[in-house]
C-alpha cells in the first residue's frame, strides 16, 4: 500500500476504515463494509445541471420569502404571514432567541449556501476555482446541518391544521414555493459537495 497516492484512498468518516477509491458507475453507491455508512454516491449532475438547480432554488427561495405563506380569516378580518413576519413577531414578543434561530436556519444560512454554491459552480464551469474557494468550502461544511427550510414546510402544514379549527384558512403561493424548495433541497441532499474539491485543479489563482 506504500506507493498509493492519497487521492486514490478514501477513509470512512464514521469508522476510520481505509479504502481504495473506485470510480462509481451510474446509480452506484459505495458503502463502508465495517459500519455500512455511505462512502460515496454517484450522481449524474454536471456542473451546469448543479448550477441550474442552485439558480432555480434561489428563484423559488425569493418567492417563498416574498409571498405570504397562509392567510387566516375570522369574521371578515384577514391576517397573513410571511417568514419575516414570523421572525419579527418572535423578536417583538420576548422570544428573541427563537427569532434569531429562525432567521439563521430559515433565511441567512440557506441564502448563504445557495449564493456561495452558485459562486463556486459559476467558476468551475470554466474549470477554475472561484476566489475564496477554500474558505467557502469550509464554511459550507459548517453551515450544512443548520439549514432547516424543509422542517419549516412541515411546520407550516401543522400550523395550518391547527388554525383550521378556529379560522378560515387560505393557502398562499408562498407555501407552494416552499414545497418546491423542499423538493430541490431533497435533490441536493444526494449530492456530496466534497466532490467540488476534486472537480477543479488546485492552482492558487
Amino acid at each position, binding site marked *: *500500500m506504500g506507493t498509493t497516492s*492519497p*487521492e486514490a*484512498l*478514501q*477513509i470512512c*468518516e*464514521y*469508522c*476510520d*476504515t*481505509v479504502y481504495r477509491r473506485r470510480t462509481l458507475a451510474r446509480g452506484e453507491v459505495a458503502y463502508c463494509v*465495517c*459500519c*455500512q*455508512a455511505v462512502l460515496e454516491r454517484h450522481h449524474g449532475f454536471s456542473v451546469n445541471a448543479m448550477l441550474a438547480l442552485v439558480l432555480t432554488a434561489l428563484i423559488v427561495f425569493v418567492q417563498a420569502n416574498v409571498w405570504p*405563506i397562509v392567510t*387566516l380569516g*375570522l*369574521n371578515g*378580518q384577514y*391576517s*397573513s*404571514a410571511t417568514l419575516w*413576519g*414570523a*421572525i*419579527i*413577531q*418572535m423578536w417583538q*414578543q*420576548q*422570544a428573541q*432567541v*427563537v*427569532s434569531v*434561530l*429562525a432567521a439563521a436556519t430559515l433565511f441567512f444560512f440557506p441564502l448563504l449556501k445557495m449564493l456561495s454554491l452558485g459562486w463556486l459552480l459559476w467558476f468551475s464551469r470554466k474549470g477554475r476555482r472561484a476566489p475564496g474557494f*477554500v474558505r467557502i*468550502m*469550509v464554511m459550507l*461544511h459548517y453551515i450544512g*446541518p*443548520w439549514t*432547516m427550510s424543509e*422542517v419549516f414546510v*412541515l*411546520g*407550516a402544514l*401543522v*400550523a395550518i*391544521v*391547527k*388554525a383550521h*379549527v*378556529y*379560522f378560515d384558512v387560505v393557502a398562499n403561493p408562498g407555501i407552494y414555493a416552499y414545497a418546491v424548495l423542499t423538493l430541490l433541497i431533497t435533490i441536493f441532499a444526494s449530492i456530496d459537495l*466534497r466532490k467540488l*474539491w476534486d472537480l477543479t485543479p*488546485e492552482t492558487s489563482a
Partner: protein
Amino acid sequence: MSALPRASELGLIGCHVCGLVCNGVADDGDSGNSMACPRCGCALHRRKPTSYARTWALLIAAFIMYIPANLVPIMRTASLNDIDDNTILSGVVELWVKGSPDLAVIVFTASIVVPMLKFLVMGTLLVSSQRRSGWAQPQRAKLFRLVELIGYWSMLDVFVVALLTALVRFNLLSLVAPLPGVIFFGLTVVLTMLASMSFDPRLIWDGRDTND
C-alpha cells in the same frame, strides 16, 4: 474475514472537513498542536479533540434545558373569553383531538420521541465508547447516523409557534403569543445538535478488536 485497515493504524488521517486522506504520523492524538490539512487548511485530528467532554457537557446542558421546555407552556392562545396555555404535550393532545391524528403523530415524533431518542442514544454511545466496549458496534454506528439525520426535525414545534404567532393577530378576538417554553425547547434542539456534532463516531470502533 480479514481485518479491514483503519486509518489510525496506517498513520493516516481523514480530514473531517474536506475528506482528504492525509499522512498523520506527526499527530499524536489528543495533543493540542496538530497539523493542518494541506487542502482545506483545517486542523487535522486523528479523533475530534476532547470529544467525550464536549459531548457530555452539551448533552447535559441540553437535558437541563429540556426540563423547562416540557414543563413551561410554549404558546398562549387568547380569545375574548378565555386564555389557553399549551405545553408541547398538550399541543399534541389538542392536535390529536381537534385537528388530525396523523399530524399529531408527526408532531409527537418530532417534539418528544426524537429528543428523548437523542438523549438515550447519545448517552448510550458515550458510555459504551468510553468503556471501549465492542458491543453491537455496527448497530451503534447506525444509531449515531440516525440521530444525526433526524435531529434537526425537532425544530418543528418552534416553527409552528413562530408561524401561528405571526398569523393569529385578530386583536381582541384572537391572539397567539409565544411563551418561554419555546425558547427552552429551541435551545434544547440546538444543544443536542451540537452534542451529536462534537461526538466522534470513530470512537465507537476504537474498542477492543472484534474478530468477526
